[in-house]
Structures are given as structure tokens and as C-alpha cells.
């Protein structure tokens, strides 16, 4: 038994277990459930009932079985490769996006550390720079899918995706520069702990949303554009270029694109919680000094999940409320409005930080 425990407690094995737990118990289930929740929520917005027909006998679970039905359907569908497609690139393309989406969770802490044990796969030194590196990988999925499909619509979609993601990458980093300045670190744990301090005694927590309100809006916009969700879904362009870069895909590979979209939706929500809403820290909990450790951890996980779900809901609400940008308008918004704004944000933040120092 001791021997087993010793193996488990080695850092490498522990990291693997954490990866499995965070990804299999947090990211993927939430992403999968969101595919259903999006349909249900949009149905509520639009005065519909939403999916409720999949059943086993008389049990429908108000649509829960659609999750299983969708999964089974895409597994059993034929995995087609279009004529003239570049087979290898075509086959691997869907997984770039999925890997990038899942990898985001590697640096997100979902609860505070208990002793040496952290609820975070790894607290890498570059911290958020890792996120930028990973989300850039995302573009390869779209570009490879678009160019290898041998379809003109897919090619247009892939081109749009690459242009959009490269340009939003630029100011995504710049938008976050303010956070680095305020909390003085790029490490995720440092930023999260920095947000556990308070202004005016114990009145207002120093959350990112209060220290960096403009940065919050800019970074959120950049992330939504980066995940190619509405209103920035010109690469998918369902009405003019049919489905854009993943037009030709079918079966599980198509599902991989969809799953990547929803997992990165959760990823965006988790990142926003971590960077701008105090991460796992429950505000004012430190006032209750005799709180048992287990309760604190449970509350922290609950708070983190709660804010993540709120942000997932917000992105879905956004998608079903506003129309889409045209492709050149997306680019114009990024380069002409958001980039200058994020530069202004840096300057203001720098001045304030200097003045307070």
C-alpha cells in the first residue's frame, strides 16, 4: 500500500492523474453538457422547447439522452475523405483544435493548494504565455482542415480563420499586459493570489474585473474571436460558405471540431474566472478563520465552477442575441478599434501602477 502511494505521489504520476481528473471530470463533461445546454438555452430564448425526443422506452430526461444519441451517431457515421483531399493532413486536422482547447486547462487552478498538493496540473513559470502559445496552435487545425479538404468553401473558411486568429492573437496578448502589470507576474498562481487582496480594508476584492475593466472586455472579445464563436464566426460562415473549414468532415472528426469549440468555450470561461474574477478564491472567506480546510476547498471548487458556468452562459447568450460580423468587419474591429484601445489600456495601467508604487 505504501509502495503504491509512493508511486502515486511522484510528481509525474500525480500530474497525469490531475490531467485525467481535470480534463475528464471538469472540461470534457462541461463541454459535452454545454452542447445540450446551448440548445436548451437557445430554445428558452427563442420560445421553443428544445431537443426532448431521444428516449429509452418512456425515459427522455428532458433531452439528456440527446448527448448519448449525438455521440453514438457521430461514432457510427462513415468517416469520409473527399476526393483529392490531402489524406494525412485532412485526418489529423480536427485534433489540433481539440488538443489546444484541452491544454488550456493545464495551468488553471480549480481550488487552493492543500499543503504541497495543488489543484492545478502545472504552475509553469511563463504562465499565461503558455496560453498564448497553445491557442496559437488552434489556428493550424482550421488552416489544415481548410486547405486539405479540396473544397473551395473550406479554403475560404480556412483563409478567414487564419487571418482572423493571427490578428486577434496580437491584441489578445496586449490586452492582458495590464493584468501582468497590476499583479506583477505572469504565473497563474501569482495572479490568482494577487486577486485575493482587498481594497478599503475588507470591502472590495482586488479582482481583475475591478483593476482592469477595459482589459476584461478586450481580452474577452479576443478570446471569443479566437475560439471562432458568434458573433465572430465568419470562418464558419454557415450561411455563405456553408460550414467553412470543416465543411467536408463527417462522423467523429466533425464531432472533434464541435467538441473543440465547446471545450474551448469552457476554457474561455475558466480563463476569465481565473484572471478577472478571483479564480478559486471565495471573497471574504478569510474572515472566517476557523473554517475547516475541506469546506474551504469545496467552496472554492463550487465558486470556480459557478463563475465558469456563468461565463459559458454569457457566451451562449451572446451568440443567440447578436448577428454576425462580416469577415472584413471582424478584422476592422480588431485592428482599428480593439488594438488601439488595448494600447491605451496599457498606458493608463502603467501610469496608475507607477503613481501608486
Amino acid at each position, binding site marked *: 500500500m505504501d509502495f503504491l502511494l509512493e508511486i502515486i505521489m511522484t510528481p509525474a504520476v500525480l500530474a497525469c492523474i490531475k490531467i485525467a481528473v481535470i480534463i475528464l471530470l471538469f472540461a470534457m463533461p462541461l463541454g459535452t453538457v454545454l452542447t445540450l445546454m446551448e440548445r436548451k438555452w437557445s430554445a428558452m430564448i427563442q420560445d421553443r422547447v428544445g431537443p426532448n425526443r431521444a428516449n429509452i422506452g418512456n425515459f427522455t430526461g428532458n433531452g439528456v439522452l440527446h448527448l448519448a444519441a449525438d455521440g453514438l451517431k457521430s461514432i457510427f457515421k462513415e468517416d469520409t475523405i473527399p476526393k483529392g483531399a490531402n489524406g494525412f493532413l485532412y485526418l489529423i486536422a480536427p485534433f489540433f483544435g481539440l488538443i489546444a482547447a484541452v491544454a488550456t486547462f493545464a495551468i488553471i487552478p480549480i481550488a487552493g493548494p492543500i499543503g504541497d498538493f495543488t489543484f492545478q496540473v502545472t504552475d509553469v513559470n511563463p504562465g499565461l504565455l503558455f496560453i498564448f502559445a497553445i491557442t496559437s496552435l488552434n489556428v493550424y487545425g482550421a488552416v489544415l482542415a481548410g486547405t486539405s479538404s479540396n473544397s473551395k468553401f473550406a479554403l475560404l473558411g480556412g483563409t478567414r480563420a487564419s487571418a482572423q486568429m493571427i490578428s486577434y492573437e496580437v491584441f489578445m496578448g496586449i490586452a492582458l499586459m495590464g493584468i501582468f502589470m497590476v499583479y506583477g507576474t505572469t504565473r497563474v498562481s501569482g495572479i490568482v493570489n494577487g486577486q485575493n487582496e482587498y481594497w478599503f480594508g475588507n470591502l472590495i476584492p482586488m479582482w481583475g474585473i475591478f483593476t482592469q475593466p477595459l482589459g476584461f472586455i478586450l481580452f474577452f472579445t479576443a478570446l471569443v474571436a479566437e475560439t471562432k464563436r458568434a458573433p465572430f464566426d465568419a470562418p464558419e460562415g454557415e*450561411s455563405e460558405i456553408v460550414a467553412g473549414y470543416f465543411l467536408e468532415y463527417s462522423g467523429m472528426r466533425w464531432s472533434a471540431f464541435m467538441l473543440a469549440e465547446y471545450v474551448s468555450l469552457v476554457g474561455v470561461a475558466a480563463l476569465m474566472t481565473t484572471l478577472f474574477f478571483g479564480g478559486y478564491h471565495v471573497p471574504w472567506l478569510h474572515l472566517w478563520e476557523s473554517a475547516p480546510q475541506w469546506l474551504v476547498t469545496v467552496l472554492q471548487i463550487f465558486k470556480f465552477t459557478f463563475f465558469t458556468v456563468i461565463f459559458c452562459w454569457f457566451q451562449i447568450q451572446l451568440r*443567440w*442575441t*447578436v448577428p*454576425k460580423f462580416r*469577415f472584413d468587419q471582424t478584422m476592422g474591429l480588431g485592428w482599428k478599434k480593439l488594438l488601439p484601445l488595448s494600447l491605451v489600456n496599457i498606458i493608463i495601467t502603467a501610469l496608475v501602477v507607477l503613481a501608486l508604487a
Partner: protein
Amino acid sequence: MTDMNALQTRMETSTSGADFSSSVMTIEIGPAHPAMHGIVRFTTHLDGELIIGMDPEIGYLHRGFEKESENSKWIQVIPYTDRLNYVSPLLCNIGYSMAVEKLYGIEAPRRAEFTRVIMGEISRITDHLTCLGAAAMEIGAFTFFLWFIKAREYLWELVEAMTGARLTTNWTRFGGNAMDLPDGFLHDLEDRLSKLEGIMEECDKLLTRNKIFIDRVKDIGAISKEDALSYGFSGPMLRACGIPYDVRRADPYSVYDELDFEIPVGSTGDCFDRFLVRMEEIRQSTSIIKQAADKMPEGPFMTDERMLHYPDKKDVYGNIEGLIDHFKMVMEGHSPPAGEIYMPTEGGNGEIGFYLVSDGSGDPVRVRLRPPCFNFVQAMPLITVGHYVADIVPIFGSINMIGGELDR
């Protein structure tokens, strides 16, 4: 926005085969494509995302309506007219019946005319709701679409209550209508219209001043007054250019001259103006319906002239005229006097005109439909070239092409 001549030259060199290194990409939009809600094909030539040439190809929904009508009796054409415009079938019913009445030189009773106005305006509203909803959906405002479809559903229930069907209405006859107003219809109507007004207000708040929406439709697909006239535009597409031409006012038919309504006009003829014109027309139609419901006279809903309907059974069995009438109606059908007429009516999209030729026998010699969207589709190259490929969607949505009446 772009130099059209340069695009033209570019197009010519790239398709003539002289420029082999050309980067012009030709994509087929349609016949099966999410934005093509009728069936139509646009062979589109792109330079990057810029449209430099476009060839519309129609005819995918050709059913031979006109030829089929020549092989039918006059009355048998009415069900075919249901299928012409499948979002406002009643307007085609009314248009055709009024054309045949003009051939006969008769008028339907006033109650029938007022009922026709009500049902016609309901159909115009459903037409506009579908058009605006679908156009908005394609640029991403899906919620707007479903709210409008909900409103349309209220109205289609009225159509169903009146005619027994939602699409295949087959409701008008020569000299009246097949059915009178059902019990409680006017009360229902008031209720549904107030619901519609609520939805209109909500949707107006959601979309009309939305910055993203305005960016997508403003200055897109604009057409000048002169071009619009020379292409033979009519309906909301023409009014959006600033020409207040509406058949209901220009050449009043039915009882429209007794009703008070305004003709909304735009100024630039772009997609946004078309959107606003259609939104306002829905409100005007609502007011027309209310007025018509207030003025609804008592009386018959079908003319009592001979040879326009089957005689009553008591006449068939009771006197010789009735029996002969019945025999002739069965054997020959309606026989309008010889002659030819053109009868324009204002459809949802524009002027729906029926050109009819009769030789006095029971069979139509010619039934020709003048569909409004034929001209719009013809103008597609003119109004899309120079825009981006994503602009095809709002432009085509605002045209509201209906395959049924376009291809006939």
C-alpha cells in the same frame, strides 16, 4: 466602393482564357446551398472574397404552371396558384380570381372583397415576416427569425381557421370566396394582431438599431431608382429606392381605395432600406386589417350571378334553368367571354400580374404570370458585383426570391 470597370476588365481577361495565372476563383452558390432558400444557382466569380462576376441560373423549380393551366379548366387553376408563392398563397389566389373576374366584367360582393383584403393583408404580413426573418437569420440573428416565425404562426392559424389549410388554401372563387368568415374570426383577429404588434416591438428593439446588423446591411446591395425601373422592379424593392409605386394605390382594385394606409418609401435602395420598408409595411397592413374588420359589411360572400357557381340543389331539381346551369357547369365549367386582360395586384414581393386569354370556351387559352422576383434575380449581378461574398446573404435575403413564382 470599387471601380466597376476594373472589375469588368478583370473578369473578361480571366474568363477569356488569356490570363492563365489568374487568381479568380469560381464557386457555385446553389442550387443546394443554405443561403439559397428557393432553388437557384449563382455561378460566382471571386477575387479573394470580392465578387467580380455572377451568373444567376433559374429554372430549378419549373413545374409548368402556365402550360398546366392551359390544360385545365379555369377554376382548376386556383389550386395551382396556391403553389406559386408558398409564403403568401392567398395573394396569388386573390390575384388570379380577380383577373378572371375582370375577364367576366363582374365584381365580388362587398363582404367578399373586405374579407379578401383582410386575408390578403394577413398573407402580406406572413410574407414579410418570412422574408425579414430568414434574411436576418442568415446574418446570424437566429432569435429574431424564430420570434417572427412565432408571429407568423399566429397568423397562419387564422388562415387555417378561414380556409382549412395553411399553404394549400384554394380559397377564392370567381365572384366571391369559398367560405365566409368563421365564427369569432374577427375577435381572434384582434387578439392575434395585438400579439403581432407586441412581437414587432420586441424585434424592433432587438435588431433595428443593432450596430452589427446595420453594418451588415447598410449600403449593401444598393440600386439606383433608374436601374430599378429599367429592371422592372416593383414592390418593397422598388419602394426602398424611393419610388412610391404600389398597385394598391396606383391602380386601386378591390376596396383598397376606401381604406387609409401609407406607402413607406426608402431612399437609397440598400438592404437596410428594404428591411425598414418591409417592417413598416407590416404595420401598415395591420392597420388596413383593422379598418377592414371595422367596416366589414353584412351580406353574401359569393355572387349570385348564374354560371359562376353551381346552382342550389333546389333549383337543380326544381326548375329547368337550374338543371341546365348545373349541366353546363359540370360539362363546360366557367366560360369567361372571349378576350384578353392583364390584372396586376400587389403581392408580397411586388406586382403579381395575371395575363389571361380566353376564347369563350371553358378552357384557358393562355394563363401568364408576371412574377415579381424574376426581375430581382435578373438584377442580382448588378447589385452584388463589387461586394464581398458574405454580402450575397443579406442581398439575396432582402430580394425574397420565391422559387414557386419565379420558375412557375
